[in-house]
């Protein structure tokens, strides 16, 4: 499989992406014209108070949800929101996911889970890549186990290996440490940092934990559907401080709207 991010200058680009939910009685604008550009090999955390639109941003950018307006480019290719099958085929090899709830298939072994996206895409397994990734995530001895035999940390590492083995142009992580204890969370974040360093992997991670966001190379702050700030080389303390102010502003705007 070719690496989509090698030749292009942008792993991900959003052009004034908006998302309006019509399901409730009053239409809710979750994203209000978000534009951003991420070069390959960057590790970006997305933070914001709950309801700020960070999950919506991740879903629209990764092709899991269709933006109401605006364009999404992954590794230079425009994402086409046609049928589910078309979108699925677009995501294959371009987009990898790591979720809070692991989403491993219980019937499959660790090895089968890791290779599943490649099989679904009908792509050949790069044995060298598989071996490297599995060793890096420390699952070499657990390949024939099933998810129910694994600890939470091991399950999440399986999910990370599953995402990395396809050489995605960009990896989206949605609260990847949310269900883990501090030690396992630390391990997951180290894996992400290492993937960026050694594989040149691009990662976008949504989190509410300043400590987790601190392992990213930059942090985007979202509030009320807009990117309101960007921080380079963040630390847990500076993030927490910024978040406190954001939370204050958000509750102030909310109070003003009532």
């Amino acid at each position, binding site marked *: 499989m070719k690496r989509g991010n090698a030749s292009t200058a942008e792993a991900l680009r959003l052009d004034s992406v908006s998302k309006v939910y019509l399901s409730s009685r009053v239409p809710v604008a979750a994203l209000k014209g978000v534009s951003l550009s991420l070069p390959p090999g960057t590790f970006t955390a997305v933070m914001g108070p709950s309801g700020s639109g960070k999950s919506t941003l991740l*879903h629209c950018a990764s092709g*899991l*949800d269709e933006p109401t307006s605006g364009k999404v480019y992954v590794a230079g290719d425009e994402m086409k929101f046609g049928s*589910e*099958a078309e979108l*699925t*085929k677009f*995501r*294959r090899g371009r987009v990898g*996911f790591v*979720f809070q*709830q692991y*989403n*491993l*298939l*219980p*019937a*499959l072994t660790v090895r*089968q889970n890791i290779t*599943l*996206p490649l*099989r*679904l*895409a*009908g792509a050949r397994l790069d044995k060298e890549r598989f071996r490297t990734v599995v060793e890096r995530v420390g699952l070499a001895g657990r390949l024939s186990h*099933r*998810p*129910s035999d694994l600890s939470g940390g091991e399950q999440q590492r399986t999910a990370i290996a*599953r995402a990395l083995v396809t050489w995605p142009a960009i990896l989206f992580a949605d609260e990847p440490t949310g269900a883990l204890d501090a030690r396992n969370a630390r391990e997951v974040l180290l894996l992400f940092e290492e993937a960026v360093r050694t594989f040149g992997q691009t990662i976008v991670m949504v989190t509410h934990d300043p400590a987790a966001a601190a392992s990213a190379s930059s942090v985007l702050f979202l509030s009320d559907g807009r990117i309101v700030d960007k921080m380079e080389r963040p630390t847990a303390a500076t993030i927490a401080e910024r978040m406190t102010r954001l939370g204050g502003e958000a509750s102030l705007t909310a109070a003003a709207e009532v």
Partner: protein
Amino acid sequence: MLSIALSSLRFRAGIFVASFINVFLGAAILMSFASLLDSAGSPAVSRADKNTLTTMALVIGGWGLLIVAFGVAATSTLSVRQRDTEIALLKSAGATPRQLGRMIISEVTVISVAAAIVAIPVAFFTGRACLAALRATNQVAGGGAYHFGVFALTVGLGDTVFAASIAAYAAARRAASLSTRDALAVAAAGERRISRKRIVFACLFLLAGIDCGVLTATVFNDRGFVTMSLAGEACIQTSIGLALFAPALMRTAAWLLGRPLQMVSRISGYLAGTNVRQRPDQATNVLMPIVVFVGLAAGSLYLQSVFNNANAASRIAESADGKGVETLNFIIVAMIAVFAAVVLINIAVATTIHRRREFGQERLLGATPAQVLWMVGLESITTAVAGLIFGTVGALAGVVPYSIARTHSAAPHVGIGIYLGVVAVVVVLMAAANLGATLRAMRRPALDAIAVTSVA
């Protein structure tokens, strides 16, 4: 706990509607036949008529009783097992095994009692139609009025509610005995082993089936209607015995069909094979009603066919009454077969809809909807093939002894047409139920489907 039980009923309408329909149909059919016993008890009925009515009610009721009990128990068990996660959560929230047991049993009881009560008026009319049919074919004389009373209510209602409660009790015991961790693990990975109790029951049914078969071919080989119904009993008991062994049968079938499946479709076949091997519990839910349906339908239709051929061979002209008996037989078999088919559809749909989250995960990882459909389709084929094979064994367990009894030849001289018809029905039902349910499960975006709090 009752309020939790009731809100759970509202929350998970699908599987409970399935349970309701099964209990309703089962109770209606059983009460119709049991009402013949009530009618036989009326003083104006002659001794001969009393005999006919009682025999019919007991013989047909006997099969029906088994099949209805089996169908109701299978759906009730499924309705509890699909909630292993919820039960595990309740446990971790501090529910005692006793409270959980009460919750499960009260849910099942509320549903089955409600369904059985709704079935009473329906059964009243079908029972009356049944008696009228018997009179029209001159199997009973005109004397005596139609009665719907104690027998109908106790036998009909009793069997269905009893079967549902026993199943609920067993499921509740199992749910209560699992540790919270195990319950979560089972919810994720499915049950692996067949319990010893299940093996004992399966063996008892198989032995009873073989016993009926031997009696058909030997001691009772010239008792007319009794011989035939004994052979029918052999089909049903053997089929239920085999159905209880379903998890083992399913694994064997998956092992045998694994390669061919991958030849049909590499990735969907691979997933289908793995799912059936690793989650045999899902496939066996559906395998059980298929085995019973095939054993019942193929068995009873071929019994009738052997009966007709034997009569034709020995130049017994078929009387108008004989024709009437045949028609009636068909109607009765059809009613029970429809019940078995409804159980099959309900269980197939409930099992597939329950996999919504799994489908969502596969879609997120790069499976197109077509690949998911292929996967489910190939799983259905594997299950259908296994069900047809073992159901056929069940049918043969009655048809071969009956053929020996009537024609002194173990190989019945009958056409393949009926069998092809049964195969077609199974394939169509499976395809419609499973693919329809898969499409429905995929109607919502994959993201919603994997949400942990997804409404089932």
